[in-house]
């Protein structure tokens, strides 16, 4: 068997792939957080709960309505995005004139309420979601076997991240978003309905979280706590990448996933800690994050 650095190659590549998968979720979730933070100046603590709702939404679509995985990839983000739109319009928008801390407390509270409601209704043991037939099985890449579904998750996550980046950096709508992030009153004085732009930005960030939830449903079991365990790491990713940086959160998300995976090979006990170790080092040397703009 081929060995790399004293480790069997399939084990190494397997962990890199697992790292990329986790990285895909980190990237999608921190991307949504970054977009929301840029426009609303709110750290959306409900993000993990909305990710979980995305997974549940696809599970419900399948088990109650008989709608399968691929339509759910579009429908669940749409449904949860509309839910986010209502949340922003009715609750979150009331806090913009107050200190950011209130937004953090509010979204944290919303996360607890949402997760509590789902625990009441579905228990916390988790429910399986079958991988769609088309993506069953594995492909021999020569150096390792790759489960098809996992390859699909990485591919789709990369495409969605790049598309989001392109929308924000390369389109007129994205120019409005960037300008409003810099100076919202001025953009509004040009005739842009900034409050509506903010509402749709929040809904967009939420839809990204829900999309990640649908992707995660066949990998993680669909349970009310699935967001909580992921979101702590995602916040570390956001801090490392730099608050509000779009490309930063994508690159950092995938990068840290891989670092985590590699740590599992060489020092398994440290794999849960390594992200936070990186966070400490980055905060000590570059307090604004790797991709954060200096003030």
């Amino acid at each position: 068997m081929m060995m790399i650095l004293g480790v069997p190659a399939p084990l190494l590549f397997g962990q890199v792939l697992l790292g990329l998968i986790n990285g895909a979720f980190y990237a999608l979730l921190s991307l949504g957080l970054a977009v929301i933070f840029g426009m609303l100046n709110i750290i959306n603590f409900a993000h993990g709960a909305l990710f979980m709702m995305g997974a549940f939404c696809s599970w419900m679509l399948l088990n109650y309505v008989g709608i399968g995985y691929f339509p759910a990839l579009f429908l669940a983000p749409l449904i949860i995005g509309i839910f986010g739109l209502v949340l922003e319009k009715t609750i979150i928008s009331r806090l913009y004139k107050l200190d950011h801390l209130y937004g953090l407390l509010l979204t944290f509270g919303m996360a607890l309420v949402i997760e509590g409601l789902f625990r009441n209704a579905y228990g916390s043991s988790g429910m399986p979601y079958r991988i769609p037939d088309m993506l069953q099985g594995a492909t021999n890449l020569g150096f390792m076997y790759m489960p098809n579904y996992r390859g699909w998750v990485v591919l789709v996550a990369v495409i969605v991240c790049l598309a989001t980046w392109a929308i924000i950096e390369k389109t007129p709508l994205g120019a409005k978003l960037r300008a409003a992030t810099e100076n919202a009153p001025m953009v509004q004085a040009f005739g842009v309905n900034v409050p509506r732009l903010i509402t749709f930005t929040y809904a967009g960030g939420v839809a990204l979280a829900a999309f990640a939830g649908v992707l995660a449903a066949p990998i993680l079991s669909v349970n009310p706590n699935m967001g909580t365990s992921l979101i702590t790491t995602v916040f570390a990713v956001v801090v490392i990448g730099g608050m509000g940086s779009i490309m930063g959160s994508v690159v950092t998300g995938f990068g840290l996933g891989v670092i985590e995976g590699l740590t599992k090979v060489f020092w398994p006990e440290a794999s849960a800690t390594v992200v936070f170790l990186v966070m400490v080092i980055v905060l000590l040397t570059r307090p604004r994050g790797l991709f954060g703009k200096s003030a």
Partner: protein
Amino acid sequence: MLEIKNLNSWYGESHILHGVDFNVQEGEVVTLLGRNGAGKTTTMKSIMGLVPRREGSIKFKGAELINLMPNQVARSGIAICPEERAIFGSLTVTENLMLPPVIAPGGLSIDEIYTLFPNLKERARTAQGTRLSGGEQQMLAIARILRTGSKMLLLDEPTEGLAPVIVQQIGRTIREIKKRGFTVLLVEQNFRFAATVADRHYVMEHGKVIDMIPNDQLAANMDKLHEYLGV
């Protein structure tokens, strides 16, 4: 075209405007003159709805604006070029130029804008709007509102801190857009510049309009004006 009556504005506890009254006729260039802190910029921001609290009446083409949001004021046909220019560093020069939505037909085309401001055409590919020189940023800030089809422009100290040759270019621009039927409300510290472009001058002091001097009577009122402006 624009009629302002008993306009009062507040920033938090500070009462800045104490009953401002003036009007601007269609096609006029009218200036607000006054010392620092007289309330000129606050008057501009109050018209746009960019102050936290305001009362009184702002009528534009007969419609009341006092309770509208800034985006609704802009949609009614008023555009502002703010004192701080507000060029966006995260946008390219072209994105800055294209940012304000077109709200009505009749704005200048991109070609016409590049004819008025040849520098902007040369710098169109600049990646960050804030990389432009001060004069170029000022031209960009004026150019982007000429596109929108708004015919009432609020220009807040467009010549501040700029070299004489650029001040002259901005003067030419204001005369050119006046010829095209735009109406301009101009805040100026430099009344010598104001005299070269304006039809009438309002003088502000302590948050009120205290006098109006038609441009052709400016020479006769020089002593009074010197006293108002403390120059």
